[in-house]
């Protein structure tokens, strides 16, 4: 039986739930907006036009203009790039080493496990945002420092998650069978255990993605994140709140984009958990 990509995609498409389909198409749409930003608008996101301050939405300015005369739609579209980039890095870089640390400490146990788990306990004892703000207040605001602080803290969640799954999985027969065949522990961890334990982390990463976008937006809102001229959803919401009664579009429309992105990612997370869950149930019950 040869592997047929077309049939594979068809099968996958059929077994996906509606949630997943809607979520993926919404998210794909947002990525497209980010990719084709220069083609969607003719304005410069940083250009200040003092002849058109605080204009309400019209055909020329779809989302209106802000207090410096910048086109809000252009800024929202360009901010998509930055927000998705930050969300992606702050989610998937910690996932990689968090999963690795969790898998190793779950599989080997003992001294390393104890040290790693005490570190995660300490990190999880504080609220995530407080810890990030604390590190940022030492390093100073900026995108680079957001990366550093999130990389320092965010892996603990994944390490915990994967370690718990690994503890269950490592006592199963097929792991012992792999040991009997003389495989090394790296091979057992990454080739045999990993496909079984990573699903929950992937599902969680979808929700984490949303939380991280909200985190960056929140930090920018507080003035600790992206610095003023650069367009960023959270920062734009923060800038517009002085004019919320006169010019509602400056805060509301970027906020709507945050909501849509979060919505799409949550749908994907839900759909994936259903999809993986089904597959897991299926193999276990046989």
């Amino acid at each position, binding site marked *: *039986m040869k*592997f047929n990509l077309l049939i594979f995609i068809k099968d996958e498409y059929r077994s996906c739930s509606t949630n997943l389909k809607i979520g993926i198409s919404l998210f794909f749409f947002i990525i497209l907006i980010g990719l084709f930003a220069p083609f969607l608008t003719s304005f410069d996101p940083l250009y200040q036009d003092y002849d058109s301050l605080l204009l309400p939405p019209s055909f020329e300015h779809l989302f209106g203009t802000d207090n410096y005369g910048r086109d809000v739609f252009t800024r929202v579209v360009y901010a998509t790039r930055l927000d998705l980039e930050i969300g992606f890095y702050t989610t998937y870089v910690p996932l990689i080493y968090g999963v690795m640390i969790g898998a190793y400490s779950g599989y080997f*146990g*003992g001294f390393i496990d104890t040290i790693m788990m005490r570190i995660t306990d300490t990190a999880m004892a504080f609220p995530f945002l407080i810890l990030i703000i604390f590190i940022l207040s030492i390093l100073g605001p900026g995108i680079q420092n957001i990366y550093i602080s999130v990389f320092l803290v965010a892996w603990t969640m994944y390490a915990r998650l994967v370690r718990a799954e690994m503890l269950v999985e490592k006592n*199963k*027969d*097929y792991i*012992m*069978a*792999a*040991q*009997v*065949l*003389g*495989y*090394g522990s790296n091979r057992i961890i990454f*080739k*045999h255990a990993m*496909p*079984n334990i990573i699903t929950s982390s992937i599902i969680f990463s979808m929700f984490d993605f949303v939380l991280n976008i909200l985190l960056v937006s929140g930090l920018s809102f507080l003035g600790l994140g992206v610095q003023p001229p650069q367009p960023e959803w959270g920062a734009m919401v923060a800038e517009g709140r002085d004019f919320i009664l006169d010019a509602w579009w400056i805060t509301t429309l970027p906020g709507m984009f945050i909501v849509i992105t979060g919505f799409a990612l949550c749908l994907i997370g839900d759909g994936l958990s259903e999809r993986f869950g089904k597959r897991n149930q*299926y*193999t*276990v019950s*046989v």
Partner: protein
Amino acid sequence: MSNNNTVLSINNLSVNFKVNESKIFANNNISLKLNKGEILGIVGESGSGKTVLCKSVIKLLSTPPAEYIEGQIIYNNKDILSLSDSDLREIRKNEIAMIFQNPMSSFNPVRTVGSQIIENLYYKNKLTRIEIKNLCLDLLTKVEIPNPELRYNEYPHQWSGGMLQRAAIAMAIRNSPKILLADEPTTALDVTIQSQILALLLNIQKKNNMSMIFISHDLAVVSQVCDRIAVMYAGKLLEIAKTKDLFNNPKHPYTRGLLEAIPRIGKETKKLKTIPGDLPNMSEKQTNCIFRSRCQRPSLDCKEGSIEMGLIEIYPEHWVDQCCVNCG
């Protein structure tokens, strides 16, 4: 006692498990020899330490709960229990293989059966993809899987238990190991498949002249398959003999009880014979006869507790626990 024919000898092995401050004495002073090309059966009721013994042979028990208290397992003039991890892996790869009880759970559910079989072929020899695949198909044909080409890309849940056990056997024999440990390989299968798997195992064993340790609690299976049989009870060996001797002339009261408990076809019995009592508490170290509480006619020496446990050879190659030789 030792000769050139011996492939594996277990000397005075004791294994404990530490559970919440208390200890479970799973194996106590076990000594065994495995000869070349021989099938050694280990029988005993559940919880008598058969599997622990089998796993100890390749040091598979994870050592925080388990402790190897004393004893050696000599293979190739080396003590397996004191080998380094990398040496141990070499032995597991090439010399000693194992088949598990439940074939359904001994395969990784998220990977195809074919990929799991070729993985360890890749590992051993540096061959090209096509050569490896052909080797794998050869192996699958050897264990009598129909349509290996088609079956190759399927997942474990698409295979039946018997087929998976065949695939497990294929993986175990791929490097023609010297010793095969079969830990109740047919318990999870139904009777017709069971006989097929047994025939296959015997066939392969004869062809490769492997030694085999065959664990089971099914006396009928053991009597068909094995050359010698060891009877285990509460972590101790009670009797070792050739299959014929053990079935015709059981010396230990426990063995006798086991044999009497088998229902016979054609003989009408109102009630099956049983051995009264329960297994002794394994968290207490027993120095005297462990079978005394269930023995129906214990000998005088046993009652007084003047004899320690230990095997003696009463006939050629028929070893029985010395305490119980004289028991009724």
